């Protein structure tokens, strides 16, 4: 276990170094951050002086070296636009994204498990076929279209729910949460539905097919023969075994979900990391960009590791160290 974690940490460091290098080598190509800082009539010399001050005129290696040195001290650079350390900016924006992803995951979980199980157990019933039909249509609709339709129907036409932003947030030990106010929750509804719409069909189908496979196995047949109750067979014996692959896939998909927040956050002006990333691209806020990439890379490694550990805990036949 210990060796495993050490290996993962080394791996994460390598991944982050590579990401930092890639991010760093592209940053020169993303435009000139100075132009976004000054008014349009500022003279060329003034701008040049500013570039010098920011160290943008140093050679690539000098800049990368400086970046690495600072990164060792946990300093991933300074956002030009926010005028604050990039990591601070990201951590300020993270709660918004995490809450959005959390809400979307909750929706996915609460709907996909019962629907997936039901349609696996009763594949011939109308509701199962209907659910399968809806889910394949759902998988075919791009998330930004879902988002637009939701805004148009529920915000503009019906005036039921707000169309943008996070609404009222409450500061809980430095974590700006929108989950504790009614206004914040109302704002969360449409974006989280839009975000969950990509993964929900996928999970329904996954749970269904896994469950169907498990129901065909020998030991379930054996359980039937033993005369166990239906509920016990489905919920304990079958469902538990369905969980394993679902968790594996879920871990991978969580990363994708975080990436998809870019689209959702853009349409809903949700002030999270995805929105920040896209704005940073448009503003050439390069330090923030590199920091974002490093943080997301780290997040992915962490999620993967946790998934592997959970996998090991649930399934005793896989020893964590051997992976």
């Amino acid at each position, binding site marked *: 276990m210990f060796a495993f974690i050490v290996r993962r940490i080394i791996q994460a460091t390598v991944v982050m170094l590579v990401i930092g290098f890639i991010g760093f080598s592209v940053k020169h190509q993303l435009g000139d951050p100075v132009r976004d800082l000054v008014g349009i009539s500022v003279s060329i010399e003034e701008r040049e002086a500013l570039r010098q001050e920011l160290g943008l005129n140093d050679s690539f290696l000098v800049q990368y070296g400086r970046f690495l040195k600072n990164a060792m001290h946990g300093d991933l650079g300074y956002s030009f636009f926010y005028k604050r350390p990039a990591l601070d900016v990201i951590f300020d924006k993270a709660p918004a994204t995490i809450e959005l992803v959390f809400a979307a995951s909750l929706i996915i979980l609460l709907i996909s498990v019962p629907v997936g199980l039901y349609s696996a157990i009763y594949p011939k019933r109308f509701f199962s076929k209907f659910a399968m039909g809806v889910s394949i249509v759902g998988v075919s609709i791009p998330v*930004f279209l879902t988002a637009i339709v939701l805004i148009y129907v529920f915000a503009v036409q019906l005036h039921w729910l707000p169309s943008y932003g996070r609404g009222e947030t409450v500061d809980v030990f430095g974590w700006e949460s929108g989950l504790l106010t009614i206004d914040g929750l109302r704002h969360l509804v449409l974006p989280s539905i839009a975000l969950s719409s990509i993964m929900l069909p996928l999970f329904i189908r996954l749970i269904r097919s896994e469950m169907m496979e498990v129901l065909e196995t020998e030991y379930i047949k054996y359980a039937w023969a033993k005369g166990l109750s239906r509920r016990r067979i489905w919920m304990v014996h079958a469902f538990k075994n369905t969980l394993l692959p679902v968790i594996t896939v879920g871990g991978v998909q969580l990363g994708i979900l975080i990436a998809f927040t870019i689209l959702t956050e853009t349409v809903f002006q949700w002030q999270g990391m995805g929105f920040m990333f*896209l704005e940073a691209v448009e503003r050439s806020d390069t330090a923030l960009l590199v920091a974002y990439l490093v943080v997301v890379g780290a997040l992915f490694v962490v999620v993967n590791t946790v998934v592997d550990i959970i996998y090991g805990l649930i399934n005793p036949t896989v020893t964590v160290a051997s992976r």
Partner: protein
Amino acid sequence: MQTKRQKFKESYLLYSFKRDKVAMVSFTILTIFLLAALFAPVLAPYDPYDTASIDIMDSEIPPSWVADGDSRFFLGTDIMGRDLLSTMLYGLRISVMIGIGAVILQAIIGIGVGLVSGYMGGKVDAILMRIADVQLSFSTLMVAIIVSAIVQLTFGVGRYEQLAVPLLVVIIGIAEWPQYARTVRASVLGEKNKEYVEAARVIGLDSKRIMFSHILPNSLSPVLVISTVQVANAVMSEAALSFLGLGMPVSRPSIGSLINAGFEYIFSGAWWLTFFPAILLIIFILVINLLGDWLRDVLNPKLYKG
């Protein structure tokens, strides 16, 4: 032996296809779409790339059956005065090109890596799969945003229009090859210890030959199944990128960039600008997914989960 099995499969494929109405309808629609995309220059009433024929005064004409419609433009015109139907046909062509191109690239990289990784095992396998993991941690969108931002700036102005399609193929191809690699690797691991491979090894065939002419053909059905899904994914990725303004340039719109352009007009009353391209995109992806589903059911391959 080999060919007989293949034949059997084909006939079974055909048999179940004939029995499945959804598959047949999907296939028909997909064929129509693909033909429409292929023959867009012939079918389209106008050439949307011929800027000289466009008149700004024709802009935002609603579909022909609506009041104020114009019989010259069946589905109406866009903000530049281009015929929407023609623009959509050309857009579909671009989306199809990118979708298929990207999947071919994914397949080449992914199958190669998957075969080597699965067959060699050990260190090579570990390293390759870690690379795939890292690659996966950057979703398509992020790779695309960065790469396209660079390329848009590195190559001169005039050339972006021509470069956009290959560029998007490369971006989406690179971002999603691990899907293939994992699938192929999984099925190679399954095949590797089977007798026919052992036999080939005993005869003394080299590993390249074993991999490509023995293991690969037997791993093809999962590849076929994920290919359909991946085409749909690639088309969606392209649409998402264009929606973020990082895809096709305004003068060579894909379906995604058409939807993006229409999004600004969603409240203006010009509903057709978003509606028709959106419907086209959804139907296109839907039929591919339905076919993929059917293939999965019929071939029932062992897929790598995730």
